[in-house]
């Protein structure tokens, strides 16, 4: 036994307690090799399934009419009629949706986890409903029920998108909250004098940051891909613009817009994840109280 003698310490600790945690392996080397081989096959198949259409799209958008490599379609995109407006509207709707969704779902999920855990099953079912109910049913109902002034604002779409995003946002938050001992952490904070706001801000949110980011990115992807509601509400978002433009103009520019939307979402996703990692590293390095 060794004495850990910080000045004033009355504590001793067994040497074993400071030893590195041993790493455990499962199964024989042959079995592990077999598992790795299958993983590679599954990865390749899944990769091909997703990447081949994207490759085809990118290839098509990078060809001119003679079939040669060219950035012509991408260069034509910013000046394409209606593109900038559609992009701006989609971004505005995405931000509004993310804000409303976060403000609505985060407190709800936390409250259910802490105070009403028996309602988690009910919420699981309720939050799946937007997947079960087709968007066209939702938007037709809303357009029929809402007053003119509400329908005149594009932000009505944001509230619809909040409903559409609910299954992804709630599940992401639910998984994040389930991964921490929320009740104990909350009680620890309260016993140390933290009120609910400080507990939320300093204890809960930092510990569910990956779940929050995941929910945000999923919401963003949904807003940039949703066509039915925007089209029926007569607002030209990026998906609506792509369809309109494909009818009235040449294919490569339309595909270039799709590819930009796709790649743009990926870039945002990578940026968000990188930001999270760099913040984690910074907070790990940060010293002092």
């Amino acid at each position, binding site marked *: 036994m060794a*004495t850990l003698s910080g000045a004033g310490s009355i504590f001793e600790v067994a040497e074993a307690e400071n030893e590195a945690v041993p790493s455990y392996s499962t199964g024989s080397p042959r079995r592990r090799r077999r598992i790795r081989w299958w993983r590679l096959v599954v990865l390749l198949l899944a990769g091909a399934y997703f990447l081949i259409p994207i490759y085809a799209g990118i290839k098509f958008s990078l060809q001119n009419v003679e079939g040669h490599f060219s950035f012509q379609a991408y260069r034509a995109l910013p000046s394409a009629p209606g593109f900038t407006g559609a992009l701006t509207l989609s971004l505005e709707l995405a931000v509004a949706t993310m804000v409303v969704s976060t403000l609505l779902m985060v407190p709800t999920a936390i409250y259910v986890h802490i105070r009403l855990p028996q309602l988690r099953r009910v919420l699981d079912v309720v939050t799946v409903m937007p997947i079960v109910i087709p968007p066209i049913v939702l938007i037709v109902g809303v357009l029929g029920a809402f007053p003119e002034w509400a329908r005149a604002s594009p932000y009505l779409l944001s509230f619809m998108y909040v409903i559409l995003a609910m299954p992804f946002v709630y599940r992401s938050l639910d998984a994040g909250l389930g991964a921490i001992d929320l009740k104990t952490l909350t009680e620890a904070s309260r016993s*140390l004098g933290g009120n609910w706001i400080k507990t939320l801000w300093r204890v809960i949110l930092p510990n569910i940051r990956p779940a929050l980011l995941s929910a945000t990115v999923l919401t963003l992807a949904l807003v940039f891909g949703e066509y039915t509601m925007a089209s029926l509400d007569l607002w030209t978002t990026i998906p609506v613009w792509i369809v309109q433009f494909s009818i009235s103009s040449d294919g490569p520019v339309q595909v270039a817009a799709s590819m930009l939307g796709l790649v743009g979402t990926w870039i945002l996703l990578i940026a968000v994840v990188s930001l999270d990692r760099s913040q984690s590293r910074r907070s790990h390095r940060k010293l*002092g109280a």
Partner: protein
Amino acid sequence: MTQMQETSTTSAVSSAITGAAVSLENLVRTYGKVRALDGLSLKIQPGEFMALLGPSGCGKTTALRVLAGFEVLDSGRVVVDGVDLSNVTARKRDMGMVFQSYSLFPNMNALNNVAFGLRMRRQSSTVRRKKAGELLEMVGLSDQANKFPHQMSGGQQQRIALARALAIEPRVLLLDEPLSALDAIVRAELRDQIRALQQRLAITTVFVTHDQEEVLSMADRVCVMSRGHIEQVATPNELYARPATAFVAQFVGISSRVPVDAAGHEIIVFGQRCPVRTGEGSELTGSVDALLRPEDIAIDVDPDGKGFVTRKSFLGAMTRLVVQVGDITVRVDVRSDRAPEFELGTHVRPSIVARDVLIAPRQETAAADSTSA
């Protein structure tokens, strides 16, 4: 480290902490039809280390959570230093708590965890850093200040949690089975260290556990609970030597139930007349059970004896023998140097060496084997 440094650090903390008197008055808490606390009343002296002991579901954790302010009472009062805290929220009660599960904030390093309570109290950064550093020193983890919870062992995390609870200079320290998730060696060490720290700081401490070894080695007094009420409040010695009820006798330590007939405050056990202990059951007559500790019984090798040894367990200085006497099974402790005399199957003659014996109403299962740990 010099003794002076040690004393100055501890005294810097202890000067700020003074033990508070705690009074739990007729606490009632129900969950549906279950009465988790059934009129529990308990007084804890300033600076006392009080343990709440009992089986799962006895209400000990509920009592602690009521004291901490995490549970709402159906009726009753929680009074600390004469002030009724029943309607005061947890964050304003000034009670430091160490939880059973690791409760350090994963997003903060050890220093920030310890300083969290001070931050909530709007202490300046300098004060927070200085005091958190002192407390980390006190628990012997100043070299771990920049580590995050996932980089520390369970024992280290609980020591940080203890430092964090003490940082706010709590009036009462609440420990909710803080050692139960640790391995045996670390648990035993931390147990002694918590007790030493509590004695130095003289802070009123309430400790919940179902581990009687922890209780007997740490507490000034022990409150044994069963089904939401108190069975006995006593010092560990008294609890073991003079259990007030059959439940306490069987829950704390080991007791064998031996069916006997009681008459006139006397019973006859193994053909030997013994006085009945005053307390619960002392007025019983007729068919009762005698509750015998392993050390209450002596045995001698006797080829004509009615008992025979059926099992032996080496416990170090002592060896525990299981002796079958007719239909009755009793546990008997003998010094290990005498153990070779008692091979399995050896016929023995048991006798009572206790000056008096606790009796309880007869249990039908007593005849088979009614020993409890």
